[in-house]
């Protein structure tokens, strides 16, 4: 078994942010989200299902995404996650927070 990238290796809370960002473009099913993350990050961000699905449930519970059953590209029933208005708001605020955080980290790293 290869190395499993997991949320533990991401900054805390980043997975939620990434999921919200991915879903902000279009509704997707779980596998699609994982695949998209991997693609966009040039294979750096490989989210395992054991972090992905719990995170999606957490987002649902918080009311940031809603889940609807639809049909996948291979004609199977799949659950599509859509960003809600609350989720969009959450994305904005988390993004600001992340930028602030990333900026701060950059500053620390660049200090002479």
């Amino acid at each position, binding site marked *: 078994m290869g190395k499993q990238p997991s949320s533990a290796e991401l900054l805390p809370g980043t997975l939620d942010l990434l999921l919200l960002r991915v879903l902000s473009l279009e509704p997707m099913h779980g*596998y699609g989200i994982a695949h998209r993350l991997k693609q966009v990050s040039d294979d750096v961000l490989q989210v395992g*299902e054991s972090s992905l699905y*719990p995170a999606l*449930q957490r987002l649902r*519970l918080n009311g940031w995404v809603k889940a609807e059953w639809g049909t996948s590209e*291979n004609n199977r029933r*799949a659950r599509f996650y859509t960003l809600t208005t609350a989720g969009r708001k959450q994305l904005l605020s988390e993004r600001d927070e992340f930028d602030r955080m990333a900026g701060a980290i950059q500053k620390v790293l660049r200090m002479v």
Partner: protein
Amino acid sequence: MHFVWRRLTFWWRRDQLERELKEELELHAALAQSRAVMGNMTLAQEESRDMWGFRTIEYLLQDVRYALRGFAKNPGFSSVAIISLALGIAGNTSIFSIVNALLIRPLPFQEPDRLVRITNLHPKALLEYFQQRSRTMDIAFVDPGAEINLTGQGPAMRVTASETSANLFSILGATVERGRVFAPDEDRPGKDGVVILSHELWRTKFRQDPNIVGRTIALGGMNRRVAGIASSGFAFPSTKVQAWIPARIDPRNMVDYWGGAFVPLIARIRPGASVEQARSEIHSLAAGVWKLFPWPMPKRFNADSTVISLQTDLAGETRSKLFVLLAAVGAVLAIACANVAGLLLARATTRRKEIAMRAALGAGSGRIVRQLLTESVVLALAAGGIGILLGTIALSLFRSIVPPQIPGMAQIGFDWRVALFAAALSVLTGLSFGVVPALSARSLDLVEAMKAGSQRSTTNSWIALRGWLIAAEIALTLVLVVGAGLLMKSLYGLTSVNPGFNTQKILTVKISPNDAFCAQREACVAFYRTLIEQADGISGVVNAAVANTVPLDGGLPAIPTEVEDHPRTPNFPSPMLWAGAVSPSYLSLLRIPLLSGRAFTDADGSNTSPVILISASTAARFWPGVNPIGKHIRRAGENTWRVIIGVVADVRQFNLANNSPSAISGAMYMPYAQAVQSNGQIPVVMNLLVKTTVSADQAATDIRRIAVEANPDIPVGKVLTLTGIVGDSISGFRSTIWVFLSFAVAALLLAAVGIYGLMSYSVSRRTYEISVRMATGATNGSIVRLILGQSLRTTLLGLSLGIGASFLLTRFLSGLLFAVTATDPLIFTYVCLFLVVVAAAASSIPAWRASRIDPIRTLRAE
């Protein structure tokens, strides 16, 4: 809020969620199959599930499920445990319900905690004296109630009326349903022609006629205007009271003012004052009241008056009885808990393997302890449920220990306090007996338990603890059984005591004319003489008599007297004597033996010189060693002396234990025609007694008939048998004893079960050792002796603890005991022997089982 709601809906739909998640993950797997590595699908499932947030509930349900499954697998253990606790909880809940109703639940009056009773009985004059001087209290006067006739409203009836000062209702803060309460001056002469009716009397007798207020009714021969109808449910000072009439407080009538009636005083503490202030005030006020009387009073009369809460006062003697029962039932619960703790402890040790297995599979120690605790709580809750059920039944049986006339006692029920008490009790019990075995399970050495697989590795300290638990149970049981033994001996003593009179086949009925009926003394004497003659004429009646009281019916016709050779001084006030007014046939009818002199005859009438008979103990008290015949006694204030013509045997007039009130110094009998009272009249209300040869029912109809026919305007009471009256006089005591006895039996059963459990467990634990002994030549008999000896050691330890405890504790019963001391050695001996037999019987089955152990099989299995 939304979050919680979503969680709840998720929780509700969890089956659906599970299905959906599974489907989703399968799709993921299918899509990922061609390329990426498969992750841990189960982990994904479990963690998603955790995300839904009902792991805690899930674990709890799981624990409960395990517990129920465990109990179902072990029906013997669980039924014994549940029944033990249920018995304990049932007893406690029912007794606590009574305690709550009597002593805890606030009295149904305004600000009941400010209501107090001033102890002792005081005349009207002292009411006014205290009222005028007290700065801390408003004081009212309220007598316990006496029967008077209500006439002019259909057939005459007896009504219990309480004489009160006009401020009673305002002091209690009670309102009336209709009309008004007494006006402040309505206890003054001339203004007191009013009455307040109880709701119940208004409903039954006046058919809720709203126009009755303001109308006049005839009560005890006096016309009184109905001022108001009390609120429904209002009862004071007892539920027997059906009407309140103003006491006539008249300082000019010196005799009545200072000596007419001695009654209880109640008071409300004024705002800003405290009970302690009121108490010290009464102490200083009451100290000198004996000097205020217009005639010499006993030194320091009523000087010891103090202030107690009204609730305590109303509970009366029942209070101490209840505390005894509460202690007894608490002991039963303690025994039940010790039993269950022992059972759970044994179970925890025999379950070591199971627990070790769980721990090995990854259950944290917290998780295991939680599961064990859940088991205990489930057990306790099940027991609590059954206990409450049994408790309601027990309550309906135990209710009889409280006199029903105490206000509010009719509504003893399971209120929220009691429910809370039972719930807290069951959970606390669960926790307390869950803790020890749970701790025992925690200190488990995994490898050792798994490896040994037998029960030999059990820590010895837990076994010792269990032995001590059982010994403590036996000790408590001994205390209860000794108590029950003492009480049973008392009850036996009371029922077999010679009351001094014959009770067989005697019927009695109360005839109660108005006072006015006897204004002409001769008319009254003639009326009762005719009644006796008519009663004699009934077929089956062999003798008939009249008397002002019947022994043990609760009446107390005591009067202050002057006794020849005993001049009255402040240190020797007028002795109070029980004064019977009887027809000549009374003594022969009750077979009260004449010891010397002569009995009354019909010739001792109203115009002949007054004669009396006295009881043997009265003679011994006033004229020890001297022939009392020819000596004299007279009513205090009377001019002519009455000559003693004979001495009769003692009769237990007041109660079977012969505890006549300390104020009563003796007993005398007067011929009815000569029994003139302080008001110049002879007693009006009399009891007709007849001795029959036929059945009580048959004679009762005839007796009632002749009494009613003699004068339809005179109320005639219920026909009672004398044996019934004697039985009723100890019914409260009897029911207390039965309740106590039921607790002792419960304790005994529980202790027997406890010993049995301990010994079976010990035998199963010692199987290996016993097998080795047998293999090396021990006989069956020696094995039985070994086991019985072990049980006997525990029992003897318990008995010695119990004897010590009993010596300390049974003295609290002494108020209930009759003709037996609290440390009766015979009872102690019998009870100890009895408990040894019970313990031996309980351990005989395990001992027999031990002797049947097959050593070959056991040793091979090891």
